[in-house]
């Protein structure tokens, strides 16, 4: 009796994998942070007589790994969520096919990092240092105006950052320092930061909820590497209505690193037309206006209006740090290794 269990289960597995046929199913592979309003996705489904299935595949790196490993028999038709730090790895691996979406003409050139339009920009967000407003007010402490300021004695032990080897905001902040100080100058800056008692943890959740004093975790450090959209999130998800965000971002020139996320049609898709329609849909105003409150990112389509909380509480840095994705892909491992030796050992 028990020996029949395995073939039975295998059979079920195959059945479950094939599934019913009507209507066509479009599969979208994303990272875990993907979110959207139900009605927005339903509207797309109805207009195109399609069922959209999402596969959440781990964090950004994990999801991309999975897409690359399965590229000969792709699991999905569309992949969303590769960012500018991973972009050239995705393009080198050749997982996307080019698609010149008509909506690209609306989108500012600064976001279009792939001239062949295999990866199309969808959203951006700035990794910035968030600070606990009350702490700075109470201690009459002026805000740091630049990255260099962080090494000054009055900010000793006040900053918590994420390990760039395990966290994507951690890597983004490291890249901001490389953009500012160059290679190997950034290592001197980090040496000074280390001497000034910078706290390093492995992931954003710990940094924000356990170490940061401005969050509801009430930790010991009043400055944390997080996102420019975190202050509006603090208001929207406040336990009791707040008049003012308890936190804000330091958006001085070169202090934030801009992350841009991309979508692309996966090579080998069996639903090319639908996949392209979905890409168009993600760039359209409808989806772009839904994104901020779902994923706490900013739309790349300038016609999309920002929600009230974003207008009021989010700061967009005028001069974010930038680095060429090709340079990032080529040096990521080397930079992280050197950082680890300098800051952790």
């Amino acid at each position, binding site marked *: 009796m028990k020996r029949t269990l395995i073939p039975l289960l295998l059979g079920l*597995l195959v059945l479950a994998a094939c599934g019913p046929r009507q209507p066509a199913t479009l599969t979208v592979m994303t990272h875990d942070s993907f979110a959207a309003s139900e009605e927005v996705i339903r509207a797309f489904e109805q207009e195109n007589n399609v069922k959209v299935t999402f596969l959440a595949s781990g964090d950004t790196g994990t999801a991309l*790994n999975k897409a690359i490993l399965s590229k000969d028999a792709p699991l999905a038709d569309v992949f969303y969520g590769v960012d500018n730090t991973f972009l050239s790895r995705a393009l080198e691996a050749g997982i996307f096919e080019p698609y010149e979406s008509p909506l690209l003409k609306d989108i500012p050139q600064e976001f279009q990092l792939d001239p062949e339009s295999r990866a199309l920009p969808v959203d951006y967000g700035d990794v910035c240092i968030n600070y606990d407003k009350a702490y700075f007010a*109470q201690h009459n402490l002026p805000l740091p105006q630049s990255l260099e300021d962080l090494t000054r004695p009055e900010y000793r032990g006040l900053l918590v950052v994420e390990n760039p080897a395990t966290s994507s905001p951690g*890597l983004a902040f490291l890249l901001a320092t490389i953009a500012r100080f160059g290679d190997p100058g950034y290592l001197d800056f980090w040496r000074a930061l280390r001497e000034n008692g910078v706290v390093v943890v492995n992931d954003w959740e710990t940094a924000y909820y356990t170490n940061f004093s401005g969050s509801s975790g009430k930790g010991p450090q009043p400055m944390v590497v997080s996102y420019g959209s975190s202050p509006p999130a603090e208001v929207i*998800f406040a336990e*009791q209505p707040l008049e003012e965000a308890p936190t804000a971002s330091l958006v001085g020139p070169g202090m934030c690193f801009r992350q841009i996320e991309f979508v692309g049609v996966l090579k080998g898709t069996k639903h090319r037309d639908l996949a392209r329609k979905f890409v168009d849909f993600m760039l359209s105003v409808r989806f772009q206006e839904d994104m901020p409150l779902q994923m706490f990112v900013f739309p790349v389509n300038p016609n999309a209006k920002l929600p009230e909380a974003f207008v009021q509480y989010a700061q967009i840095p005028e001069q974010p740090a930038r680095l060429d994705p090709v340079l990032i892909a080529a040096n990521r491992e080397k930079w992280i290794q050197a950082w680890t030796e300098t800051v952790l050992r």
Partner: protein
Amino acid sequence: MANPPPKRRAGEGAVSLLALPATLFLTVFFVLPLARILLYALDGRLLLQADTWGRVGRALGFTVYQAALSTLLTLVVGMPLAFLFARYKFPGKTLWRALLAIPFMLPTVVVAAGFNAFLGDRGWLNLTLMRWLGLGAPPVRFTGTLVAILVAHIFYNTTLVVRLLAHALEHLDPHLEQAARVLGADGGKVLRHITLPLLRPSLLAATALVFLFDFTSFGVILLLGGPTFATLEVEIYIQGMHLLNLPLAALLSVVQLLCTVALSFLYSRFLPRIVTPFSLRPAEANIRSPRRWGEKLFLAAMLVLLVALFLVPMASVPFRSVARLEAARGERGEVRYGLTIDYYQELFLNRRSSLFYVPPLAAARNSLLYALATVLLSMALGTPAAIALARRGQVVRTLDALFMLPLGASAVTLGLGFLMVFRRAVTSPWLVPLAHTLIALPLVIRTLQPALASIPPRLREASRVLGASPWRAWWTVEWPILWRASLAAATFAFTVSLGEFGATLLLARPEYPTLPIAIYRFLSQPGGLNYGQAMAMTTILMAFTSGGVLLIERLRLPGSSQF
């Protein structure tokens, strides 16, 4: 189970036949995917690079060091607790037992938050000490230290030691100890020469399991240990998923796997050839209330240990799920709490009409369904395998080691292997209980096997001589022992499944999230409400597990009434 059991002196053929389903399962869902990804990613050139071995060596050294230390400490805490649960009656015993099982399935993020609320820089221990002693800085350093890693490992794995040992202790023949005492041995001598040697199979099984769990530890190292510590599994994750250096990740996985193989063989080598039969007395025969005051002192000490090491870190979660930081966060200073049920109410609202919103009951239902499927599957595969492994022989030894392997494999690597072998089928929700079974199976087998091996063959023979049919002999002799051990095994399978965070292993379908996945979703966004909801969801998960474990414990009664 309707077939008569194969004869005891059956050859190796019968052994292989009984273990066949489990072996097939492991081949398809473990060996195949792992071999596939390793063959794809391994790169010989890596072996020649000088710095490769430095990195592998550093990770391996720390992994073994922390695992050995953690295992030792877990045994030190777990053995007296097992003794307490096996030998003494005390108020709230069943509840304490269920409570010990909870850590095993708590997501690491939540455990880290719980320990931090208690022992962190701004945890209440440090805040209290700072106030009393008038200190400016927190006196206790916990987060980011080796101590934090060790404490968390004890917290997670003590239940393994207690369950495996207490079960064996309950069923030891009290006459052996009594005889030793009559012959003049004091308590220490009885423990050294009688009790511990009799416990050896269970003790070895517990040690091996705890060591493997500590050896492949991931979340605890990442979140509580912090960035200065890296085990093999953490290094595999960093190399494979963040640096996209799959060859190095594969090499590290091979090293980790080889260590597991070595350990498994070591384990079966040390397993005593002659197993002393358990007594077929009901557990109650060995249990009494503490009478002498030495015993009472022991009970009190153990209760303090339970409260400090398990109850307090756990209690901080439900506490935080109903406590709100008083508004005006603008004013810093003393943290004040107010009571609220907002977080629970909020769980039932889909405020942003999100596509992936899942009502808490649906997440609980998903978790429960996966857990039930895991229990059924791992018991169905594990029981015949354990019966086969309870015998001796070369085939058995090899299989024995094979069944331990899933515990030592890198989940990160295996997940990628699944993808390459099963391709589109990997998106099926069916794969979740299958993956959970991979982890539950070694636990199930390790729990059943020592119990089965200790069934005295004389009893079976006696019942046959007295005219019982093979079926009846099995039903009256083996079944009651099997039943009790099965309950312990089912509890493991259940908690493993409830707590497993499948996203690392599989391509999760966001519309069927489990409770742990729902918890992570809340924690990945800023805002007090998200934090509170994560705590509320964890409290629900804790309630579910302890409820499930209590329910399974209830089933203990029927089998034992026959003796």
